[in-house]
């Protein structure tokens, strides 16, 4: 497995502001993903973070709302833009390695509350 850290671990934000969440892995990984888990719900994939190119977004998620960067093989950021209370969720990054791409390991998560 990989050691994954996320910052911040939690935040309380005002409506209309933006928050950038960082995900750092202790070794190079093939794939990095960003998920959202709304209260009482399961995990929903937002996008796959591609190294050196634009992220691949799932249906219902757009780059303007959730811009993602992945400048190298160990780091990615997710920004939640122009936040509303509906964006209150846990945001999780996950990674998988070449040769075992089906197994995803998750970071500790960021709990976001939007007032």
């Amino acid at each position: 497995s990989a050691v994954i850290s996320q910052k911040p671990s939690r935040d309380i934000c005002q409506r209309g502001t933006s928050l950038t969440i960082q995900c750092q892995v202790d070794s190079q990984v093939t794939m990095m993903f960003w998920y959202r888990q709304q209260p009482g719900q399961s995990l929903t994939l937002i996008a796959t973070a591609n190294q050196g190119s634009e992220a691949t977004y799932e249906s219902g998620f757009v780059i303007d709302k959730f811009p993602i960067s992945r400048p190298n093989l160990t780091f990615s950021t997710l920004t939640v833009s122009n936040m509303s209370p509906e964006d209150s969720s846990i945001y999780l990054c996950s990674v998988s390695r070449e040769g075992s791409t089906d197994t995803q390991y998750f970071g500790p998560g960021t709990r976001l509350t939007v007032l």
Partner: protein
Amino acid sequence: EDKVVQSPLSLVVHEGDTVTLNCSYEVTNFRSLLWYKQEKKAPTFLFMLTSSGIEKKSGRLSSILDKKELFSILNITATQTGDSAVYLCAVHSGNTPLVFGKGTRLSVIA
């Protein structure tokens, strides 16, 4: 549309009981099924299953897959309060991302 259904949604047992959690799925081009334990925020990987009938085991936890009937079970024997968590089942199909079920919330009381 790919679908993963877990049952029961919640379960309360006493320490020492054995529990069985269920996961059924409807996906095209099945590749693998994964089980995770989520205690606070981060899901922790438990098992990945790709072949029918082969039991994966880790301590008191075990899991098996039935690709003909399209389901998997997760067994926990001699439950402890530390087993209290949400258990998530997720399925890979084709080139689509992981599809997660809603989870089973297990509460183990002393």
